[in-house]
């Protein structure tokens, strides 16, 4: 498998968006196609200090569903990385 599998969209929200400095980036699907690897690469690249976040540090959604990190990615998937929510 290679990185020619395609691109996925990564969205940031809230304090993480501010820390990263942009709201959206496109990244290549990693060789193992795993969401976990993709998120780890993104977080490393954008230098977000996860330790600054409260509780579970950050939440990951895939295609607008909160999900486990072991999901497999497909081209054009939409990943979102955000801090614990504070609505209501």
């Amino acid at each position: 498998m290679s990185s020619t599998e395609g691109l996925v969209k990564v969205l940031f929200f809230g304090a993480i968006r501010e820390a990263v400095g942009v709201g959206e980036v496109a990244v290549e699907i990693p060789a193992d196609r795993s969401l976990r690897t993709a998120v780890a690469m993104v977080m490393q690249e954008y230098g977000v200090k996860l330790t600054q976040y409260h509780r579970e540090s950050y939440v990951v959604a895939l295609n607008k569903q909160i999900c486990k990190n072991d999901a497999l990615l497909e081209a054009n998937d939409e990943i979102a990385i955000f801090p614990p929510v504070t609505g209501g």
Partner: protein
Amino acid sequence: MSLVRIQTEPIAFIEEWTEFLRRIEGKGGAVVSFSGIVREFNQDSKVEELYLEHYPEMTEQSIHQIIDKAHEKWELLDTLVIHRVGLIKSREQIVVVLVGAEHRAEAFSACEFIIDFLKTDTILWKKEIHHDGSSWIESLDTDYQRSKHWE
């Protein structure tokens, strides 16, 4: 029945409540409403505005999921959740929950359940804007405890 609305405009509580009551009239014995209002002071520091960031579609979905759970747990006639996003001035309503049921116990429980989970499960992020800066609000342990007690 249930309705979810995410909006940047101020919440027209009166029109929403009137229309809600019209829909359940005759069937409903009980309507409970909750309005969350932006406090002018949070721990002695003056709040000029709140900024609420949302994730279009996912925010709505997350609210629908909460409402669906409430309808599974209790016999309800109708529910309505309106949540503001974007900039919200202090003293304005940030969220309104309306629940209609034949009996009051169900209406109270469902309304409180919905707002408890709006705090912990809705895809929204809140930032307080002071005259000299701004800060993202951290989620509260007490809110998570309140959600957990429904399980």
